[in-house]
């Protein structure tokens, strides 16, 4: 990672509520922590959260994608659709078909939003609410874990 990439990373972090980010690549490791004072009062135990929980795991994605995906919904009534299983995310039923949903589509409860493939089985993921797709958080073919945020829906 060069100085330019490092600066970009720091700048990107500024606009998120990630407080600590650790990246390790072959032979290179950096930890960036936000916030003022470096010293902690001795009486307060330090809370260390393992970075692996912050960065989207199992995905050799560029840091940019990881930071974007960690954005919280900006309005409190928005709903995040999360993955109920572990597998691979697909936006359509097959490569030549169109995506099930796009940003700004209106969906109804029970409508199929995407496919998650697990152990060669295609699982249709249905929406639990009716509303408008505000964000699509994963890319076609990306691996997903249990609880991985997939979409942001603004309920009707």
């Amino acid at each position, binding site marked *: 990672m060069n100085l330019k990439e490092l600066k970009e990373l720091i700048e990107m972090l500024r606009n998120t509520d990630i407080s600590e980010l650790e990246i390790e690549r072959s032979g290179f490791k950096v930890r960036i922590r936000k916030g003022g004072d470096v010293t902690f009062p001795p009486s307060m*135990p*330090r*809370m*260390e*959260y*393992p*970075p*692996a*929980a912050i960065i989207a*795991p*199992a995905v050799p994605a560029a840091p940019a994608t990881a930071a974007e995906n960690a954005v919280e919904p900006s309005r409190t009534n928005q709903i995040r659709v999360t993955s109920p*299983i*572990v*597998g*691979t995310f697909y936006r359509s039923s097959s490569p030549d078909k169109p995506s099930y949903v796009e940003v700004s589509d209106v969906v109804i409860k029970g409508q199929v939003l995407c496919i998650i493939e*697990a*152990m060669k089985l295609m699982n249709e993921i249905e929406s639990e609410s009716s509303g408008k797709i505000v964000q699509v958080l994963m890319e076609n073919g990306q*691996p*997903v*874990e*249990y*609880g*991985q945020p997939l979409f942001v829906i603004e309920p009707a």
Partner: protein
Amino acid sequence: MFKKILIANRGEIALRVIHACKEMGIKTVAVHSTADANSLHVRFADQSVCIGPPKSADSYLNVPSIISAAEITDTEAIHPGYGFLAENASFAEICNSTGMRFIGPSPESIKLMGDKAKARETAQKAGVPVLPGSNGVVTEESSAIEIARELGFPVIVKAAAGGGGKGMRVVMEEAGFANAFVMAQAEALAAFGNADVYIEKYILQPRHIEIQLIADEKGNTVYLGERECSIQRRHQKLVEEAPSVIVDGGLRRQMGEMAVAIARSVRYRNAGTVEFLMDENGKFYFMEMNTRIQVEHPVTEMVTGIDLVKEQIRVAAGLPLSMTQDQIRVKGHSIECRINAEDPEKFTPSPGTITAFNPPGGLGVRVETAAYTQYVIPPYYDSMIAKLIVHADTRDEAIMRMQRSLDEFIIEGVKTTIPMHKKILSDPDFQKGDISTKFMERYGNPVK
């Protein structure tokens, strides 16, 4: 050699496997429930995949979730640790059939040894003494008493469908037999819906001695000495040690060769442990075989100098064993204390936040733990905080080292069993090596 291994477990054993992998240059994948997102095994693995909500059934026992996690991370092999899916034959089968090597024995071995009756049969066929008993279920009281007389009192009447200490009646002498037999059948019916009982010889002061073995793909099978695990409460081991004070070189060879004979007879591969019960006269009987790496494996590692988890990985990758039988030596003495987040008197679980955590150190002290300051012990899994293992030249020195280490092990915020371990280690009978599986009864924990 594998490039990437997924550990299908959590806590200290997951970390243990990660240690071995890192030292072998193998990448690691940790799987975790949402409750374990801040666990050390997740932190120290190269990759992690969340596989489900807190309950074990939905996460660490969730086979599709774990296999999916292995698929999306290009995992080559899966280490199951102990507990959870470690002795689940169909999980081993699924791993192997989806192209992921299961680091352990074959599904057939797991199935065979998981069936207690078949395991007994296997041992008998291999020429190993088994606890004498009725060959199968006894329904008539008249035949039952005959069998009991032949075995010689005391005997125990046990529910065939039972386990966990339920549906068992010990009969000390013939006069009490008829009544006990009928009661045991009634209890078995009530507890398990099945009145089938069988009879076994009962050993008054048994010692639990187990033999660690490992075999490679070519069938080279070695034993790595014994462990004594007699300090138990309700069938849960508390303290283990290697070697056992009542096992000398000759007995070690005898029991070791018998364990190997059993393993060879079923073409057993990878690590396993054969458990024996020993009576007051030094006679031993096959109890069961565990087809996994065990919690107490570190004491064997300390006295033999062999890294068992690395050997498991090597064997699974098709490499030969690192040593031959004559190269294995037992040196010095090792003791392990299992430190749990439990009330030291009542043994009720005590989950919560660890506010201070200072493990002991120094020569001959080894701590296996996934705990740390501010760690929140989740209520969904076992209550183990750490395994404290010591090694020294003699048993007396190992005891002193363990006592010193227990004194220095500071864990605050939750109750721990450290006070109980201190009592055990300073008990005169324990120090003399005069122990049996009845030992813990003196601390108000009767074993039925």
